[in-house]
């Protein structure tokens, strides 16, 4: 049996958790995956398959369980891979079974709903351990299971979290894991890239020229860096995997944020079902207001999301204010 220190725990059986687990188990590492959904657990254990990751045969080294105690008992390193709406609840449940020796990193590229706190702040409130981190970057579930080369960054103020994360998750040539101490930066970059994905969906649907699109991306990065720096992050983080990396990979039809942007351009009302990126945009504007940072791109999309501007006006306004100030 694999030692506890070499076992990876994954909380959540969504596409990313399953894909990561599948990759790691396929590379010979023991994975214990916890899901509250007993049907999902049984399907994995009986058929080595899950409808949430269709067409993938899950390796035998991946064991699914609905008992969080097994997860905490058999793994010291846990990846929290649930949706941003469930993070508070799952952290509580996980917190009931882990102790101060565990390492918990989340793989949630958004702010926690509904408070819009960074996910690590929510984990701090719900988990007994202080050894927390974030795993972020443009590694899509498909890339992980298809064996495409991809990269993520693991961020924590604890060296040990970064070192253990890299030791356990690094699976070249498929997944390369980089390390960072900038937890605040990686979490903000990851969440804000969702907000900018909405902007890109919107501008692509409006048919902006490639030059205009490039300006939008670079300005988005510049304002995210300013906002991050004011919030105590390293501005360079936003040009890395969790910022620019995430933005480029998300700008496709597969992303709910991107689709929302397109729908907005077509005149749809936004309020119905806010995506993670839409929440991040509004939260980003609020944070910028508190810190006194100018964020014209975020303000523009926030105005569209709240119905105060129509998309075309917003596009012009963003262009004007960006040019005026810089």
């Amino acid at each position, binding site marked *: 049996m694999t030692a506890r220190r070499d076992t990876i725990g994954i909380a959540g059986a969504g596409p990313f958790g399953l894909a990561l687990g599948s990759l790691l188990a396929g590379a010979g590492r023991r994975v214990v995956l916890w899901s509250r959904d007993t049907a999902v657990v049984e399907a994995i254990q009986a058929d080595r398959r899950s409808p949430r990751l269709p067409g993938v045969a899950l390796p035998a080294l991946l064991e699914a369980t609905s008992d969080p105690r097994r997860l905490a008992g058999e793994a*010291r390193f846990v990846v929290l891979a649930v949706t941003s709406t469930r993070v508070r609840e799952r952290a509580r449940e996980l917190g009931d079974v882990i102790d101060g020796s565990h390492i918990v990193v989340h793989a949630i590229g958004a702010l926690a709903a509904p408070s819009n706190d960074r996910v690590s702040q929510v984990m701090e409130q719900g*988990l007994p351990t202080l050894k927390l981190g974030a795993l972020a970057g443009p590694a899509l579930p498909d890339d992980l299971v298809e064996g495409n080369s991809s990269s993520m960054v693991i961020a924590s103020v604890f060296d040990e979290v970064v070192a253990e994360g890299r030791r356990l998750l690094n699976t070249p040539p498929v997944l390369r894991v980089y390390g960072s101490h900038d937890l605040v930066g990686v979490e903000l970059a990851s969440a804000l890239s969702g907000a900018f994905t909405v902007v890109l969906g919107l501008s692509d649907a409006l048919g902006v020229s490639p030059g205009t699109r490039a300006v939008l991306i670079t300005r988005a990065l510049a304002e995210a860096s300013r906002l991050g720096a004011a919030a105590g992050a390293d501005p360079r983080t936003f040009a890395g995997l969790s910022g620019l990396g995430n933005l480029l990979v998300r700008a496709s039809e597969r992303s709910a944020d991107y689709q929302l942007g397109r729908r907005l351009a077509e005149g749809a009302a936004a309020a119905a079902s806010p995506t993670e990126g839409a929440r991040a945009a509004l939260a980003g504007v609020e944070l910028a207001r508190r810190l006194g940072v100018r964020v014209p791109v975020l303000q523009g999309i926030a105005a569209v999301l709240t119905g105060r501007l129509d998309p075309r006006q917003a596009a012009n306004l963003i262009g004007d204010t960006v040019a005026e100030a810089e």
Partner: protein
Amino acid sequence: MGSDRPVREAENRLERFNEDRERLLAEVERRVLAHRIAVARAGGDASLEYVLNDVAYCEIRRLEASGAGDAAIQRWRDLSRRLLTMAEPDKEEELRSLVRHYGRDVVGNFDPRVYRFATGIAPALLGFVFSPVGSLREGMAAIGSLDARILADGELDLVRGCAERGTLIVTPTHSSNMDSPAIGLALLRAGLPPTTYGAGKNLFTNPFISFFMRNLGAYRVDRRLKFELYKDVLKEYSTVLLEHGYHSLFFPGGTRCRSNIIEKNLKLGLLGTSVTAYRNSVRQGAPHKRLYIVPVTINYRLVLEAETLIDDYLAETGKSRYIITDDEFSRIGRIVEFFRKILVHEGSVVVRFGRPLDPFGNDITDDGESIDRAGRIVDPASFVRGADGEVTDDDQRDAQYTRALGRRLAAAYPRLTVFHATHLVARAVHDLITAAAGTRDIYRLIRLPAPQLAVERVVEQLARLRARIAANPAWGAEHPRIAAQPAGAVVDDAVRGLSSYHTRPIVSRREQTLHVDDVKLLYYYQNRTAHIPGPGPGPGSDAAAEAEAP
């Protein structure tokens, strides 16, 4: 898990310090040497040559700056030169002798006879000497009221329980050299055991005070010694003391707070020895040797050294001094004055104890068990354990734990702040002055003509401030003695205080007008409320409160 833990009677553990001293010193020496020799194998900056040269270089610089004679400096020049050709065993021997030297320099003493004298006879004696002896009867009354001068309150039962269950690390805010005697008396008053504590070496220059400090468990911290080896010795000494169950006191602010603003940025050096000591205890199979970090605020009606401290704070950036030796504390006349005029006031010093934390910044239950943010009981030993339950050494991890602890402490202080009339009225007056001047820039305010205010307006402003404080317990609380007084009486009380002790009155009252004669000191006293947001628009402000009113 709590009940089967050995609970010892609260005792003065310092009583056994002198028997322990040589053993403690030997332990410090052994550990510092073992650590230094182990890391030296990596070479470079960790090599013994580098470590020893660092000592020699710093000592030469310090001695040159202090104008010491050539003979004293020569010893270090020799060392520096010899290092070039010294064999490794000789370097280790040199290291051993230096560690021993600095260990002896640091180590304290505890004389039970001096303790009994200081806590029994001395207060009565001091009370008599320092009381305004208008008549014998007043003098006797002053002796009787000494108990009332320093008020100890807060979570005393809980802290007493922790002193029995484990070892206390008392961490007060730091505004005066009077803090050590004040906290010492407060501990006594609260039925808590005395603590050992690190005191700046400059405080040992007065032979009278030095005698008491030396014999009451203080150890010497020489802040002029900047080299790593000295810090090693100091930290290891503190660690060993904690492991042996000696209750300790650190001022996490590091040095006396210059501005009188509640400390936010804490120095983590000695505080970090709490994690190290607990980690060592867990490794030695004694996870039940719990450590409790107790946030404490020391709140003075007036501060002995206020004038020097605020001058230093307002001195141009970079010119402020880290160690001040020529302040009011060095002038016996000022100390006597302080005792006579200030400490005769009932409750003129309030020492408030907060709920203790564990070394990882976790809250604790009333039974001393650690709990996480969600309120679950958590085993503190698990924080230093690895995947298989083994204790792991990781200084970077422990530094992060200490940072978390520091944040929790800094967050605890405002709620524990006790406002005297002097603070509240200084704030009310300061708010009125800044509103009239249209600036909060203290450098500009100082240059304005002496402000005058109608007493009535001050009373109104004070009433608003008091209402806001009452509605926000997280900001602190009024002194229990003034809580029931009307605003007018609080203003009178503050004016008496603010015009009594300092070289010139800070404010003075003529008829219905309040004259502000010293804006700088007014600023110093109002700074105790600096964590309370301004009365302008904003959450929790006067304007916001008025806007919400129907």
